[in-house]
Every structure is written in structure tokens, then in C-alpha cells.
């Protein structure tokens, strides 16, 4: 079958309408998990099938699309999803956060603040924040509907009693507009404060068949204790390539002697800064890098 035999953005129009209805409901009830009829996609579950379906439903022909995986534009998952939509939707693609109108992400929020005309689509493996505390979906849905969230704090209590601090570092539970407790997908808790933003945020879980959403400027509060307040943590270091002190860092082991390098996990942010002349402790000026 040729590529042109596909409908725009792979999914048929009826499916996209179904997903858009779920998205609208999700936006109307921020943080609420809306069930939807997730389709088989030409990639395995766990590779972002939820995010891909949401992206397919919101993309229009004049969109510019960006995909990041752990902040990077050039990892397998990001490259394959970007190419998928290049082929099936023919949309323009970019690495540049500022130029993108739809950004699909796995495990990160871009460092650069997003604007009101952008949409951020998350890939979500497990949408239910209470899953590992209460295995019954019937029971967790009842807990959501009756706002019984004491159990969520039991998890944080256990963290403190075992590790002396809240050790949950990613997928850190949040409360949305004082109502629903939500799993922000496995983003580092460093990104939690950014969840209140100007752009629309859509969350798609393909295997679990759930969509949820945060409209712009939604109040999102990370759960904590009065005497153990939430802290957005990152490696206590500056980026070794671009020198940024405010970005989330990856730690790389670079040789057999245990030498290490910290670099921005958001590759676009890092390269933009380097192009502007910022150089980190182990970085080299951009011109030599290119040569």
C-alpha cells in the first residue's frame, strides 16, 4: 500500500472524532481520566501509542510537529514517531521548540516556556496514580469519584519513613484544581511546577485506553506534607556542554575510569544555548564542534 492510501495522519476521520470528543471532555474536567476506544497502531504498546493517537487527532496540515523522548529529538522513539507523521500526515517537522505547534513528548516538558498557541501531547504508560496502591480499577475509580485520596499520602509517608525524604522522583502525583489526583506521566518532579502553563496539555495512554488533559493556566499542585514540602530536584550541577544551571540534566559515564558528564536532557535547549555562544565546563565552542 502506498503512503497516499492512508487518511491524513493515519487514523480515519471517525476515530479522530471519537478521540477529539474524549479530549474535549478531558479539557472540561481537568485531571479526569476519560476512557476512549484506543486503536491498534503500527507500533507496540509502550512506544507511545496513546500520544500518537492524540497527536493524530489534533494535527492539521499546516501544523509543525516536534517529538521528544526524554527531552531528546534524536532518540529512536522520537525519530520513528516524527517520521511516522511526516509520512502519513505530511506535516512540517522541527527540532526547534519555539517553532513547533504540536509537541509530542515522552518523560519531559521542554525547558523553554510554551506559548498559548502550542499543544503538548504526553505519552502515558500508566494513567492511574493509585494503581500500585490499590490494584482494583473499580475501587480506584470509586476513590476518584468520591475524592478519597488519603492513600496517595500513604505512599509519600512510606517514602519518608524508608528514605528520610520523599523519594518519588518521577511520575510525582499532583492534584488538579483542588479536585482530581493525576499522574503527570513519568516526567521528573523537576518538571512538575511547569505543569501550570500557557499551552494546552493532553495526555494519552494507549494500552490503558485513557485520555486526560490540562487546559492552559490550570492550577496543579504537587502533593506533599507540611513538614516535608515538595521540592523540584535536579542534579546539583551545571550543564557541561552549555553551562545552563536551570535545566534538567542527564548524567553520562564517558569512559571506563568513571569520568562523567552532565548535559541538558532537552537537546534543543542545549544546542540553542550553545549556538548563542554559551559554553560549559567540558564543552567546545560550536564552530569547532561542527568542523
Amino acid at each position: 500500500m502506498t503512503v497516499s492510501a492512508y487518511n491524513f495522519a493515519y487514523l480515519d476521520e471517525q476515530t479522530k472524532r471519537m478521540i477529539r470528543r474524549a479530549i474535549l471532555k478531558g479539557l472540561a474536567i481537568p485531571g479526569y481520566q476519560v476512557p476512549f476506544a484506543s486503536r491498534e497502531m503500527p507500533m507496540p504498546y509502550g512506544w507511545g501509542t496513546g500520544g500518537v493517537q492524540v497527536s493524530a487527532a489534533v494535527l492539521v496540515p499546516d501544523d509543525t510537529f516536534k517529538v521528544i523522548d526524554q527531552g531528546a529529538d534524536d532518540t529512536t522513539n522520537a525519530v520513528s514517531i516524527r517520521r511516522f507523521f511526516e509520512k502519513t500526515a505530511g506535516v512540517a517537522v522541527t527540532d526547534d521548540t519555539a517553532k513547533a505547534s504540536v509537541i509530542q513528548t515522552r518523560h519531559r516538558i521542554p525547558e523553554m516556556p510554551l506559548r498559548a498557541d502550542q499543544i503538548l501531547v504526553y505519552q502515558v504508560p500508566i494513567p492511574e496514580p493509585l494503581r500500585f496502591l490499590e490494584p482494583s480499577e473499580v475501587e480506584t475509580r470509586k476513590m476518584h469519584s468520591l475524592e478519597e485520596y488519603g492513600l496517595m499520602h500513604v505512599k509519600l509517608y512510606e517514602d519518608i519513613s524508608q528514605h528520610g525524604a520523599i523519594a518519588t522522583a518521577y511520575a510525582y502525583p499532583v492534584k488538579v484544581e483542588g479536585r482530581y489526583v493525576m499522574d503527570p506521566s513519568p516526567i521528573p518532579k523537576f518538571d512538575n511546577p511547569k505543569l501550570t502553563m500557557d499551552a494546552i496539555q493532553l495526555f494519552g495512554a494507549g494500552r490503558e485506553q485513557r485520555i486526560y488533559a490540562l487546559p492552559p493556566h490550570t492550577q496543579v499542585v504537587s502533593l506533599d506534607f507540611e513538614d516535608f514540602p515538595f521540592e523540584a530536584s535536579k542534579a546539583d550541577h551545571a550543564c557541561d556542554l552549555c553551562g545552563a544551571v536551570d535545566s534538567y540534566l542527564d548524567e553520562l559515564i564517558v569512559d571506563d575510569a568513571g569520568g562523567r558528564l552532565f548535559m541538558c536532557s532537552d537537546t534543543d535547549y542545549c544546542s540553542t544555548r550553545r549556538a548563542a555562544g554559551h559554553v560549559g565546563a567540558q564543552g567546545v565552542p560550536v564552530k569547532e564542534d561542527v568542523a
Partner: protein
Amino acid sequence: MTPLLQVEAVSKFYGARIGCTDVSFDLYPGEVMGIVGESGSGKSTLLNCLAGHLPPDAGAVRFDTRADGLRDTVTMNEPERRMLGRTDWAFVHQHARDGLRMNVSAGGNVGERLMAVGARHYGDIRNTATDWLGRVEIAADRIDDRPSAFSGGMQQRLQIARNLVTGPRLVFMDEPTGGLDVSVQARLLDLMRGLVREMGLSAIIVTHDLAVVRLLADRLMVMKDGHVVETGLTDQVLDDPQHGYTQLLVSSVLQV
């Protein structure tokens, strides 16, 4: 005096079979009521109906709520009923595994009800949990151990601590001493008797162990085939049983 719990003609059927039928009684504050009967006599069905775990098919269960006085918990909406279940009511299961979170530490188990009603200060929660572990004779240094590392008796005591931490007014107990050896049973009974007196709790205890009701219960209700066949003061029922089944039950106790 207003009864704490007013049960009126409660019936529960499983299809054509009777779970329990036409049970009525009043329970006053500070009173402990025992329900005895053989297996399958409807004791646990009745208890689950009273505690809101099962919807009865007929009848009313009125509880003296703090805010609005007597309210029928059967027709009450679910959030309100579940709120009662976390605050004014406590339910002690026969098997501690049913009433505990086995993969959460002892402190977390005790703290859960506090956090469920809004406690958000780790230090305070931990202090309360430590205090309650002490009250049920669990060493404070076991606070971070999981219940799976506890003996059966300790698990049962932990379950009691977890239930009583929010200061409930009514405790439902389903065979609280079942499956424990006699010396552990004796200590548990001693502990429960102390707590009930000290906190002025009302309790409904379902058991088939007459020694348990003799020690704990003020009043006794004997059930057979879903019906209540005899009620009265515990000593009166046990020392001078009137109904044939009660006589059989009392005479069946092994004498050592």
C-alpha cells in the same frame, strides 16, 4: 438517651436463601453487643449489612451521627457512608490480611485513616502511630516493618490500632480472635476490654466463641438460620439459656 445504633427489621436475602431476616435491636453508647451462632447462621451477613458493606434488602440501620443525629445509613449517599466508615466506625476483620495493607509499613497502616481525613503533617502522623503501636503492645522500633513480618497476634493488634486511631464511636468486629492460639487470644481480649472501657467505645462483636462474649459483651444475641432466637444480658443468656439452640450451644463448650 438516644441509641448510638438503631437497627430495625434488617433482612438480607441471597436469591431465595435467607442471609438474615427481621433483625432489630438498639445499641447504646458504651455498650458491647455480642452476636453468636454457628457457621452460616447469618452473623457475618448481618454485621456487613450494619457496617454498610452489604446493602440490606429491607429494614433500616440508623446511626447517631455527630452532625445530624439519627440517620439511616442504608439510604444515606455513598460518600457520607464511606466517610462514617473512616471516622466514626471501625471494622476489625477476622483475617488481619483483609484489614491491613500488607505491603505498607505498620506506621503507614496506622496513619492511613489519619491521612484519609486530612492529616498532612508527617511528624504528627508518625507520633500518633507510635503512640498507638504502644497502646496495642507493639514495640516502637517495629514501626517501619511491614505487617507480613508480624506474627498473627501482632497483625491483629495492628489492625485494631489502625482502626481505633481516628477515635471511632462504634467498632464492628468479625471473629477478632479467630485463628489465634489461646494465650494470644487472652492477651488480645484483655487489650480490647481495656480499650473499650478506656475509650467508651460501643462495639458489635460477631463470634462463635462464647468465652469471648462472656468477657467482652454486655448483651448477647443468638442467631440460628438467619433468625435471632434469643437476646438478653450476656450472663443471663449463658447461665440460663431458654431456647433449645442456645442450650445446645452453651452445653457444647468443651470443659478443660
